[in-house]
């Protein structure tokens, strides 16, 4: 079993004729994705690697029947409209690749998704992969590179950084630990789905035995995760890696993702590490410690 997507998931790519989207379509098709269509207004009738292009999401749905997912890769000024269009045409899972979207628009997309019972991953993310089953988004890059870094197994991965999703998976793979589903949740201050919101899905997935997360300064997402873990007596051991420890000394400076800025006490890495450890989450000093910490936690749990 996987979470969020499976080998059966059908999806479209909005903005499919853009440079990045064309690459992404190729990479996802090569990995076995079921991309049924693409949308770019005014480009109906074309195709991208055999994927038909439509003007509207509605036209794709009329032609292909209900579609489960969409990857949104359009410029920031057009993203909200594209996501609303997907939501109003019955799309249930939306991966937003685009970055630099103002928070208000992200909040609007999330609010409508909640009203429609849909889920958003991102923005500013590389998407979802269930190794050996399916991927949706740029995660892992070309199919051959994806297969090198990601292998099927029992570790769930969640990361605010797209690149670090692959670094962690690659480290797990090298250590003989495959992954169930890896989710690049995005680096913005407001994201469609947080660590804590993914936990119930991993918790319900018998194939997932442990979780690895990449974490960084800014925001309350780690506090939320720590609370969830405590409140729900989670069966899953979690190992976290915390980057950006130097930022604790540099309040008010923005580094990296839009969500990465230390404004208050709760945003610091020291505070986050303390909270996570208090809830039973192990915190790794280096990426390469993650596999052994996971093995240790799994053997303790038995």
């Amino acid at each position: 079993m996987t979470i969020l997507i499976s080998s059966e998931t059908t999806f479209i790519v909005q903005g499919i004729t853009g440079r990045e989207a064309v690459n992404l379509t190729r990479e996802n098709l090569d990995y076995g994705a079921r991309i049924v269509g693409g949308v770019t207004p005014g480009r109906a009738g074309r195709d991208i690697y055999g994927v038909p292009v439509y003007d509207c999401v509605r036209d794709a749905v009329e032609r292909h029947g209900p579609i489960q997912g969409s990857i949104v890769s359009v410029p920031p000024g057009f993203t909200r409209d594209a996501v609303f269009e997907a939501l109003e045409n019955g799309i249930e899972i939306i991966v937003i690749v685009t970055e630099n979207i103002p928070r208000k628009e992200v909040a609007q997309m999330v609010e409508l998704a909640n009203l429609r019972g849909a889920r958003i991953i991102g923005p500013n993310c590389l998407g979802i992969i269930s190794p050996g089953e399916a991927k949706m988004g740029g995660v892992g890059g070309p199919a051959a590179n994806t297969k090198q870094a990601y292998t099927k197994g029992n570790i769930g991965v969640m990361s605010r950084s797209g690149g670090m999703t692959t670094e962690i998976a690659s480290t797990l793979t090298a250590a003989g630990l495959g992954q169930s589903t890896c989710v690049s949740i995005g680096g913005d201050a407001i994201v469609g789905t947080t660590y804590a919101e993914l936990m119930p899905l991993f918790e319900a997935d018998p194939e997932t035995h442990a979780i690895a997360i990449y974490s960084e300064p800014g925001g309350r997402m780690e506090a939320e995760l720590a609370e969830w873990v405590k409140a729900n007596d989670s069966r899953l051991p979690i190992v976290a890696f915390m980057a950006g420890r130097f930022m604790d000394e540099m309040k008010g400076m923005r580094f990296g993702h839009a969500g990465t800025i230390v404004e208050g006490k709760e945003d610091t890495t020291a505070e986050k590490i303390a909270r996570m450890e208090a809830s039973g989450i192990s915190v790794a000093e280096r990426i390469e410690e993650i596999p052994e910490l996971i093995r240790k936690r799994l053997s303790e749990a038995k």
Partner: protein
Amino acid sequence: MRFYEYESKALFERRGLPLGRSRLAHDADGARAAAAEIGAVVLKSQVLSGGRMKAGAVKFADTPDEAASHFETILPIEVNGQKARSVLVEEKTPIAQEYFVSVTWDGRAKKPVVLFSDMGGIDIEEVAEKHPEHVSKTHFSTILPITPRIAKEAVGAVGVTGGELNRLTPIVFELMQLFLDFDLTLAEINPLARLEDGRFIVLDGHVDMEAEARGKHKALLEELGIGEDETRQARPPTSFEIAGRKVNEADHRGVAGNVVEFDGDLGLVIGAGGGSLTLFDAVRNQGGRPANYCEIGGNPSVKKACELTKLILAKPGVEKIAVMMNVVSNTRVDIVARGVIKGCIESGRDPAEVIAIFRIPGAWEDEGFKILAKYGVEYCDRSVSMYDAAGRAVAKMGAQS
């Protein structure tokens, strides 16, 4: 992007929020003239930081001469490392009670939230801790129409009623609208004062606009005189950082050039977002002295990687550079390799000598490693961790000094 108090108030004024009379003074004569016009005044340093009162950068003056003298005292005071730009000379008003109102984002609820308190003027976190019944938290929608009843509920929740409730509601409601209309990340009035005659006045306030939304509000920013080079972060950008941004903006392919300056000897060409944070920690933990922070990613062009390399190598004190990323998905290893080698050569440096380590595994790595081998540059693949790659670079610096 934080606004100065006087800019925040200019925005408030556009929306009819009640303000005291004020003038912005750039010199002592300006302060004197303002006080002569207004009467009893308060002089407030215009800095991008809280804690002005504690730093002695707020003073009261009853006469024009006193105002001029206070101006000279206040202007040179740095508040939390921030220099004052000017001094706001504002009407001194008799206050009956102070309130607090703030609109910000709640990243967990993924909605904006109004915080309201009838105990303003002091640290709101302290009030929330000691007197939670005096702070209300009210979330509101970004897609359903917002109406004054949300503001009324926020005010009423702390027990305010009567005429006060009805006078506060429109002020809070206006702040909520302002927050949404201008893509703000913070719109705060503290204190919001009730005067002895019953009127309400915004005594102090500040707003933050989301950097991503600057492009949408160009007209407003221009009107307020906020230049495009003003990042309004904890410190102003250095010329090195401004040059880095120009490298990044020179072409639209990928990211390379969002640099932050440090004073070390090891230049860093690192990426991507999370990878840069990880690698910067790794360099520092092993005793390295970074000359800069930066981020590359999204498949930057050869030219961009080259220009960034040249910029870093030209920085005084930089001995070597380390080129490192996490396993990359959409950045081509060979393109970065070509860019940094070209940058070294165009700087008149030998890539083999100046590149301490190249650790970028991922797409097109074989092609990249071939080029690096040809120039004798030390490189490694994913079997060497990010931490150990950083350690190798740091070790080379040690050997040199």
